[in-house]
């Protein structure tokens, strides 16, 4: 793994100047490396991780198990990519086991998500069945605990 990628994962929210200082590069070099990673599609982007319950965002999220028909030559890819392109779809994975795709979707209301499933997703030719599970509450997002107060563990300021 490239040093800059390791540092991005490890350093949390370091800004470009801080990244440059740790890596002993100029800020321009850091930006150039980040651009390269983006061009290679290694670095896809940055997003904040929010506790949506506090934002009163009204976002409804669901996980959908989708069974699809594999196609000669392309397997599951064409359909999976097609499904992934919908704005409502946050992530989409090919799975082993009882269904083929696990699709994470969100929408502004339960009705909108339901409509997406019945009108857009289920009606695609090749989609055999869907099973939709609405998320009720989140406990951990992208490695961050929610609602659990992460008190700064008290370390003595000086110890032997």
């Amino acid at each position, binding site marked *: 793994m490239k040093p800059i990628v390791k540092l991005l994962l490890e350093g949390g929210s370091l800004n470009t100047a801080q990244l440059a200082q740790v890596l002993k590069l100029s800020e321009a070099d850091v930006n150039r490396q980040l651009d390269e990673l983006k061009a290679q599609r290694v670095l896809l982007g940055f997003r904040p991780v929010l506790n949506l319950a506090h934002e009163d965002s009204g976002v409804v999220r669901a996980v959908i198990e989708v069974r699809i028909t594999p196609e000669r030559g392309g397997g599951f890819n064409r359909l999976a990519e097609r499904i992934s392109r919908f704005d409502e779809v946050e992530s989409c994975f090919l799975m082993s086991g009882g269904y083929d795709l696990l699709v994470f979707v969100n929408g502004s209301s339960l009705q909108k998500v339901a409509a997406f499933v019945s009108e857009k997703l289920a009606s695609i030719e090749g989609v055999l069945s869907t099973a939709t599970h609405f998320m009720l509450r989140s406990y951990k997002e992208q490695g961050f605990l929610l609602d659990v107060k992460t008190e700064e563990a008290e*370390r003595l300021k000086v110890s032997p």
Partner: protein
Amino acid sequence: MDSSRYIAKHVVNLPKSGIRDFFEIVSKMKDVISLGIGEPDFDTPWHIREAGIYALEKGRTHYTSNLGLIELRRAVSKYVGENYSVSYAPENEVIITVGVSEALDIACRALINPGDKVMFHQPCYVSYSPSVTLAHGVAVPVPTFAKDNFALTVEALRAAWQPGCKLLMLNLPCNPTGGTCDRAQIEAIAKFAIEKDLIVLSDEIYSELTFEGVHTSIASIAGMKERTIFLHGFSKAFAMTGWRIGYACGPATLIEAMMKVHQYSMLCASIISQEAAIEALLRGEDGMKKMRDQYHRRRDFIVRRFNEIGLKCHLPRGSFYAFPDVSATGLNEKDFAVGLLQAERVAMVPGTAFGANGSGFCRACFATSYEQLIEASNRIERHVQSLAAKK
């Protein structure tokens, strides 16, 4: 009534730890970035904590054998065998202690007759000299030097040796210097120990945090297992300082002697900590390596920064401490550390807290976040520049 006259003489004469003086100053200040901490910034990995919780849930709240849970001693024996190339029988060559500190204390009390001399390299962990004194022994410090990257040399051992020396205490990699010895140096020290008929107490608490080369335990050198007490614990590598859990491995007769002291003073280590320690040994390796990698990268950063700033700093091969030379500022280590704290609110521990020959150096712990290290190094830079401007 003056109650102080009741205190035992050897306790009255014990110096107060230099760290405590410094702690008093720092603890009264706000917004301090502290590089003065001697423990990991990571909390104990969750699976280990969870094992402790589970131990409570299933009613593991009783005494254990004095030597410790046999399951833990077996795990220790396996871990030490695999990682340090020396095998100990879990039945009678391993004892579980309340941290390495207790292991060191009971080893001293079990082995030292009044007046026996004990060698240890300095700068060193703050409790070595007092442990010897409390066991009525005589401390014989052996200096290590920046020019050797603070490795212990046989030349220094020979120069310091005197008739009556019985024990040699090693702490490699070393707190506070990060210095350690390669295999050839360890072999030379082993030869010296055999020649002078010394028992070696080898505190290898930082051994997993060795960044360059392979850590060699002196116990694994031919002829040394029989005269070495291997001391280790979970505090540093597994981020378990507060659990107070460690162990000693050695010849059965010496472990039995240590066990006598242990059973009449400590009885046994906390069973909850012992259960958690089993989990750490069986499944903690990946998490430990992840933490080590992070310390490694942070070390490279902070050492480079010290050298850029003009505080000459050798590359510590192990531990999570950098030990920069601050004498170029024209100040001694105490004045520098206090000045830095007052002007920029960054805490480093003056090297003399770890022995007289730590003079001119400060200890900086890099087990803290990148943000803090970056900010601390920038503040130190500003302070050093302002000192230079005043000159």
